[in-house]
């Protein structure tokens, strides 16, 4: 059963089309990854799903109901973890969660127990009397999540929930997402971190210029580019690397540069590795390491959009 159905969704800001005739479905129980560069239309889509923005065209159905016709019903079943921290610094952790949960109709003992459960879930029960201003970035992120889950929504939308936090907190949050999913929540997850999406999402949509350019399971997406591979070459100095010259080598589809690593996206069966290495030797560019990788989401994104997610 689909928890969310989007058909021909369009949003314009003046002449700029932020979301362009988008259609997608999210099945109940999925962790749905939303991949796209900045300005691709992810947040605009999420904001329309959650009712924060009005759509220009199309329809959004959640739990079989049109979101614009049944806003209160829909909102009761959504939890939003915004990209920016959305908590009150001068309310305690408990007061933050309790306040937002209270807006969903929870009262009395039920409100208290759900608030404590949410704080326990994100590992902040012992800090329930503390103010967020004394929290680390990771703890604030976890409180941000607790505020969205105490009312036990059916659909949780997480917009870049791990931005700017330490690896330990990131791991905790990713585990929490999976645990929430096991508890029956459907999750829409956006991230800049490809490996996060690859690790936890059961279905992924790649969005570019307001359009879904591919969607499916990780395996389905990877199968779209079975005819290509990625070569990573780590060099000592990139000053003399001419990307256009590498692109000119037969079979090379795309080349990107990230710090000292050159990512070369090349066709399978092109047998051009010798030519690529020759280029570096002839130009006296010292190669430190060379790695050839099977298609992954990064490759998929690069192939479909022509750029890496972090470059975008």
């Amino acid at each position: 059963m689909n928890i969310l159905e989007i058909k021909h969704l369009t949003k314009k800001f003046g002449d700029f089309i932020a979301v362009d005739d988008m259609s997608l479905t999210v099945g109940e129980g999925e962790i749905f990854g939303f991949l796209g560069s900045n300005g691709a239309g992810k947040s605009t889509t999420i904001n329309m799903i959650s009712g924060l923005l009005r759509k220009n065209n199309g329809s959004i159905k959640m739990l079989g109901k049109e979101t614009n016709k049944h806003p209160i019903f829909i909102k009761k079943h959504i939890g939003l973890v915004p990209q920016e921290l959305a908590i009150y610094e001068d309310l305690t952790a408990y007061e933050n969660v309790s306040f937002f949960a209270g807006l969903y109709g929870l009262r009395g003992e039920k409100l208290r127990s759900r608030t404590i459960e949410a704080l326990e879930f994100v590992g902040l029960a012992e800090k329930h009397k503390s103010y967020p201003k004394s929290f680390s970035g990771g703890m604030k992120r976890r409180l941000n999540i607790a505020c969205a889950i105490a009312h036990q929504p059916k659909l949780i939308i997480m917009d870049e929930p791990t931005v700017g936090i330490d690896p330990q907190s990131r791991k905790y949050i990713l585990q929490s997402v999976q645990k929430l999913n096991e508890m029956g929540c459907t999750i829409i997850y956006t991230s800049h971190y490809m490996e996060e999406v690859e690790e936890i999402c059961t279905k992924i949509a790649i969005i570019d210029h307001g359009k879904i350019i591919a969607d499916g399971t990780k395996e389905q997406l990877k199968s779209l580019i079975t005819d290509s591979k990625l070569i990573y070459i780590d060099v000592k100095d990139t000053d003399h690397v001419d990307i256009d010259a590498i692109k000119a080598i037969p079979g090379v589809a795309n080349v990107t540069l990230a710090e000292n690593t050159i990512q070369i996206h090349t066709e399978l069966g092109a047998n051009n590795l010798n030519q690529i290495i020759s280029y570096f030797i002839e130009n006296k560019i010292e190669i430190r390491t060379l790695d050839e990788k099977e298609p992954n989401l990064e490759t998929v994104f690069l192939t479909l959009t022509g750029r890496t997610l972090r470059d975008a």
Partner: protein
Amino acid sequence: MNILKIAWKEVKHDFRDIRTLVFMIAFPIVLMLILGTALTGAFDGGDFDDNIALDDMTVLYENSNEPIQQPFDAFTKELEKSGIHFERLSKGTNGKDQVEENQADAYLSIDEDGAKLYLNDQNSIGGSVIQGSLASFVDQYNLITEISKAAPEKLDTVLTASTDHDYIKDQTLLPDQQPGSMDYYAIVMTTMIALYAAISAAHLITQERSRHTADRLMIAPIKKSEIFMGKLIGSIAINTVCIALVVAFSIIFFHANWGEHLGLVALILLTEIIMAISFGLGLSFLFKTPTAPMPVIMIVLQLAAFFGGAYFPIGDADGLLKLMTNISPLTLENDAMFQMIYANDLSLVIPAIAMNLGISLLFLVFSTFALSRREGL
């Protein structure tokens, strides 16, 4: 219920914000103390009796009812001691014109139909003193005139019993009821700081946006109007508590006189707080950035405070000064307070409340309209 939850959250925020509390409570108290102490001399005319010194005032009168002349002379003789001088209107001159031309502070006309009082400036403290002093005389005279017309046989009974029955409430301004400097500043600082509620109100909605909690509020299953009402009520509540504390402090520690009509005082202050909050909210919707309304609010507040007599009493004003004084909402607030407390005159209470509620309505309607057109908060 959601409205109350949001309102309670607002109260918690503000009570935990030390800067707001200091500004709303300590600031007016300190100003009361400094100005009330430093300007004692300016209020007492140098005799250190802690009372406002008023210049001598002239009341022109015309009496065509000769039998009343003797008691009237006795009455005016008493008022001469308070610096209110009575002069019979010269023949061929118009009392009202002379008052309008500032040649006298008031004109009293007495004839068989009753007594009428015309004041130069009803809103000044001097005007209040004259009005308060003459009100009981005018009312008593008018009562006797009406009785003598309708039932002359009962006139003796009324006059004899007049010492036992309060047919007319005595509104005479007693010397010990004149405002001292601390009394003065207790009132004007309180009305001024109530107006400053506009500053925090300007951040009510914009702060939710800058904290990114606006999205979380908007995604909750509540109406935008509930969020708006909750925040409005919360802000009114916290500002009311602050003002109540300031008033209480001024009574307990400065022995400021707030009169006997504390309920009406509270009502004027409450409606003023609502007006200030509505004004701040309205401006926050008028400008696109959160900081843009602040200079406008500060200029308006400072001008309103200055011309409303918050820093020193504005006496007889002419031209632009008079215009500015009349425009300041604090002028009416303060005059309503002083007349009520010191002249027992409630005539300006309703206009002050009506002005507060009228301005509030204007800005609230604008704010709700602007909010309804927005996507999000």
